[in-house]
Every structure is written in C-alpha cells, then in structure tokens.
C-alpha cells in the first residue's frame, strides 16, 4: 500500500526529477572513479563532494518548502533540525574512531578525555551502533519539532511570532552547543572522523558512495514530499495556508495537520544534515547560526516556494553562486544574497520555477487565451 501510495504520487515533472537524481547517483560517481583524469567527463573528488553537499542543501530546502510553501509556516529555524541530524551522525562517526584518537581511549572521544571525563554521558550511549545512530538522525529533530510544534500550534502561534520563536530555538541551541559541558565538543564540534560503516571516510570510493546516498535520499525525500502534497492531507495543508480559520470551521484540526508536516519536515532536515557531515568532515555549533536558517529560506524563495522542484533548483543555484562569489569576491557575497532575495520577493514571487512556467505557458498555450477572455466576458454579462 505504501509503495503504490508513493509511486502514484509523482506527476510527470516529478518522475523526471527522480529519474535525474537516480542518474546523477550513478553517473557522477562513475565520472569520478571510472573516467580517467584527463577526460572531459572526469569529475574530480572536490567537485563530487561539493555537489554532494549541494544535494544535502537541496533536501534541507525541500523540507523548508514543505512547511513554508505548502502550509504557510515560515520556519527561520530549520537549520537547527539540520544541525541536530548532523550532530547525531557526528556522534556515530566519533565513536567509529575508537582507539585511533590522539589520546587513544577506546571509548571516549578525544574532547572528553581532554575534559577529564571518566565515562561516556548517557546520551552518547548506543551511537556506536550504526542502526541506532541513523535512527536518531531523524528521530532527534523529529521529537524536538513535535514538542515545539505541539506547544506552539496548540496555542495558535502563527505568522511572524512563530518565525521569531523558531529563530530563538536555533539561537538557544547555538548557545547550548557552544558550551563544553554539554558534551558535544563545544566550540570545535565533532571532527577528525576516520570511518563510516567501516569504510575510510577520505577514500574516493566512500566519497562517491556518500554522493550517491545524498542523491538517492533527495530522490526519496522528493517522492515522500510529493506523496504528501498531492494527498488530501496536502490539500488541507494548502487550505490552512490560504485560510486557516476557514479550515477549522469545516472541521479540520489545524494543529494536527501542522504538527504532522512540521515533524516530517524536521526529520527530513535531520537526514540532510546527517549526509552533510561526513562529506564536509565536521559539525560544529555554527550550523545552528540563525543566519543559516534564513539562507535556507532564501534558497526556497529563489527556486519557487510551493513547488517541489523549486527548492532543489534554488538550493543548488544559490550555493553555486555562493561558491563562485566566495572564491572571487568574498566580501560581496552577503550583499549579493540580500539583493537576490529582495529582487525575487519583488519581481518573482514564485521564484525561478514560477518564471519558467510563465515563459512556457506564454509560448505553448496561446489557445487558452480566448477561452479565458470568453469566461471573463461571460462573467461581466
């Protein structure tokens, strides 16, 4: 039932996106591992890892769009869920180091030995097991989002107020994770990873596999998001976005619907963060920076909120821009990003995807015009 539910959920555009992502998952690693270095089709390990990182950003953007684009909840704290997923993965990777750390303690990560801790804190237990850690990657952000959402949606906190408390949430976590006594490596975070699932994390083969995993997870996230927004639940979400109180008056418990999509979205952001960490090799409190969450919102706005492809395009395009800018004119990047956001908000309310749709429908469907004009005339009569 679940599989047919998921497969039926894709429209034509969705199938193209999923097919593209699966192709990427196969071809880019092949270009890295199999194609010789001189060839035009060779993909360097640097490029591969960079693109893998973009794919995890795309998954984060998709999760933001699910709540913002489809349910009108403007989250300015989704970076927190991303970072929590990242920390869960980081904890697993730390425990994979084993006795190969500087202090060679078989159980305790280096920073704990440095702090003179004698044993592993309770919340680090179990993270040596991959299945447990991978579960926590989605579960920790999910549970936090559930509690946060339960409290705020039940008390009907909406709009700007909700956005502000999501910022406060990520800021509070930023401060907390900076503290050494929290047990997450403080300022330095978690780094110096060695293995993942027993494979050396720096090996080209492992990097290629991480890229593929990112592309496939993004594809899976896309299929799930598509199934959700095309279901009746998805229609209720849009109804809530457009007329929340009206939705209540026809008998829908708005807070339950919000809670569902909010929790799902947080879990998705957590998975994105978990794939991000082994590719960049570090997770530290700066991932909780409120600005990071705002950037994710900008990706969605640029790509096109309320569309499923938009956040993917936005995340990749903006981050290409960021990589390019920070290479050439690092000081200018933040201004460029701000300007981009203003331009998109003012002139492209539906982002790149909206622009593209207008261009395409303007070219290929002139037959529709007289039809619409006829309707208007009919109304006026």
């Amino acid at each position, binding site marked *: *039932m679940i599989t047919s*539910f998921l497969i039926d959920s894709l429209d034509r555009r969705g199938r193209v996106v999923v097919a593209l992502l699966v192709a990427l998952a196969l071809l880019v690693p092949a270009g890295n591992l199999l194609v010789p270095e001189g060839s035009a089709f060779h993909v360097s390990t640097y490029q591969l890892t960079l693109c893998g990182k973009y794919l995890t950003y795309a998954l984060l953007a998709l999760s933001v769009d699910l709540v913002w684009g489809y349910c009108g909840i403007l989250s300015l704290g989704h970076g927190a869920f991303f970072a929590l997923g990242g920390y869960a993965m980081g904890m697993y990777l730390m425990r994979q180091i084993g006795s190969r750390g500087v202090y060679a303690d078989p159980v305790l990560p280096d920073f704990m030995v440095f702090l003179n801790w004698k044993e592993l804190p309770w919340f680090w237990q179990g993270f040596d097991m991959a299945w447990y850690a991978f579960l926590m990657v989605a579960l920790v952000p999910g549970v936090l989002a559930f509690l946060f959402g339960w409290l705020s949606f039940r008390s009907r906190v909406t709009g700007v107020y909700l956005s502000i408390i999501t910022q406060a949430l990520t800021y509070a976590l930023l401060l907390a994770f900076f503290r050494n006594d929290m047990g997450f490596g403080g300022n330095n975070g978690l780094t110096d990873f060695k293995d993942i699932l027993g494979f050396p994390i720096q090996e080209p083969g492992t990097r290629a596999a991480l890229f593929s995993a990112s592309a496939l997870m993004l594809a899976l996230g896309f299929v799930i998001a598509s199934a*959700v927004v095309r*279901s*009746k*639940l998805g*229609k*209720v979400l*849009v*109804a809530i976005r*457009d*007329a929340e*109180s*009206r939705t*209540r*008056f*026809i*008998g*829908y*418990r*708005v807070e*339950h*619907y919000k*809670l*569902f999509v909010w929790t799902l979205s947080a879990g998705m952001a957590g998975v994105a963060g978990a794939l991000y960490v082994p590719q960049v090799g570090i997770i530290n409190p700066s991932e909780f920076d409120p600005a990071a969450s705002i950037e994710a919102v900008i990706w969605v706005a640029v790509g096109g909120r309320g569309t499923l492809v938009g956040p993917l395009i936005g995340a990749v395009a903006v981050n290409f821009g960021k990589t390019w800018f920070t290479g050439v004119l690092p000081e200018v990047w933040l201004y460029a990003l701000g300007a981009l956001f203003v331009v998109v908000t003012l002139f492209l309310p539906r982002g790149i995807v909206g622009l593209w749709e207008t261009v395409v429908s303007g070219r290929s469907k002139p037959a529709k015009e007289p039809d619409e004009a006829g*309707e208007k005339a009919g*109304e006026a009569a």
Partner: protein
Amino acid sequence: MTGKAEGSLLYLDDVSVSFDGFRAINRLSLVLEPGEMRAIIGPNGAGKTTMMDIITGKTRPDTGDVLFDGSVDLTRLDEAAIANLGIGRKFQKPTVFESHSVEDNIALALKGRRGAFAALFHRRSAAEQGRIDVLLATIRLSDKRDLLAARLSHGQKQWLEIGMLLAQEPRLLLVDEPAAGMTDAETAETAILLKEIAKTQSVVVVEHDMTFVRALGVKVTVLHEGSVLAEGSLDAVSVNPKVIEVYLGR
C-alpha cells in the same frame, strides 16, 4: 437550565460578550427548534455576525449558555469540534480556498473523517465523487469544476461557499448575508435554494435584503445593539414601531 433547552436545536440564554468594554452582544436569548429556518435582521453592528462567532466557537461569550441539541455546551468546544457536531457556517465575506479548484473546495468540505492520517491515505470513492457531482450541479458550477476558486465571480464564490456548507451535511446551517453582491435573479435563486435546504436541515440566515427575507417566508428575529428587539413574522415586525425606528424606517 438544561430543562428549558430540552427539545430545542439551538438554545442561547442571557449571552453577553464585550470587546474592550463595548458590549457587542447584550443578554441575548434565542431558541431554534429542530427543522426550523430563522431569518435574523438588524442594523449594521447589531451583533449578528458576532452571534454566529459565538455559536461556532470563534468567540467565547463572557456569560450565558449556548446549548446545541438541548444539552451540548458549545462554549466549551473549539471550532473544529463544533463543526463536526454538525454546525456549518457561511461567512459574510465569502471565503473559499482560492488556490484550490472549485471541485477540490467541495471535496475538502465533504462530510467524512477529518483526521490527518485518514486524509493522508484518503482515496476518493465513487460515492464521494457522485456526491461532489450532485453538489456542483446544485450550485451550478459543474462546468467550472476545474477552475481555481480565485477566478470565480463574487456571486459564484457565494454559491461555492453554500455548496461547501451543504457538503458538510450539517444539521444546522448558519448563513451570513448569502445574497450580498448578487444580482436580483441570483438572490431569488438563492432564496429558493435555502428553502429547499430548510426542508431537511435547520437554518439561520442573516440578511439585509428585505425582498430576500420576504421570499423565505419564515419567522424573523430583529437584533439591535446585541439583543433581541422583536420576533415574529416579517409583517408583524415590520409594523413594530421600535423596529421601524432603529432599522426599517431609515
């Protein structure tokens, strides 16, 4: 208290509500029998819409009883629970889901399970589709079913909202100014439609249009400054000097 409400569908007793010291509803009492249709008239600001807000859980009264079905205390329930009890509402300003198609608007309102997981795995059954088709025909929007609701005219939105109300199959319909913005012909049709509905369900209609109220031919309650000024047939209240002074005479 419950004794007096027995046998009634809707029972408001001594209800008051103030907004920042202003008494919008002032010791209002009103009883509606099962199957009854009632017209509510009164000048702007009389509290007609606020009364509907109280019944549907949007506004909590400061004092007074609001009972449904003789015993269910509506002041303790939220909007969704009240809607699911069988009280449907059409708003003064037509509110439909603009980015959904006309058909989806009806489908969302259609009576059925309202839980999030039920909605996630919901597949529209043939029976539901049949019901949607009938409703679209009733509100004359069958040919506009795929149009976005945002593109409907004001009158069509009013009808769509009435369609959504019917789709919920409520036992009590609260209809706030259904004829506003309609042509005379549309107004007359709306009156016919409401009378048809009133054969099987209870209806409370707020309307300023006297031709429309006359066409309904039902008992009228006149509200003024948050309380009942007069009650009776339209002819009877029309000659009431107090009513003429505050409302009809102007």
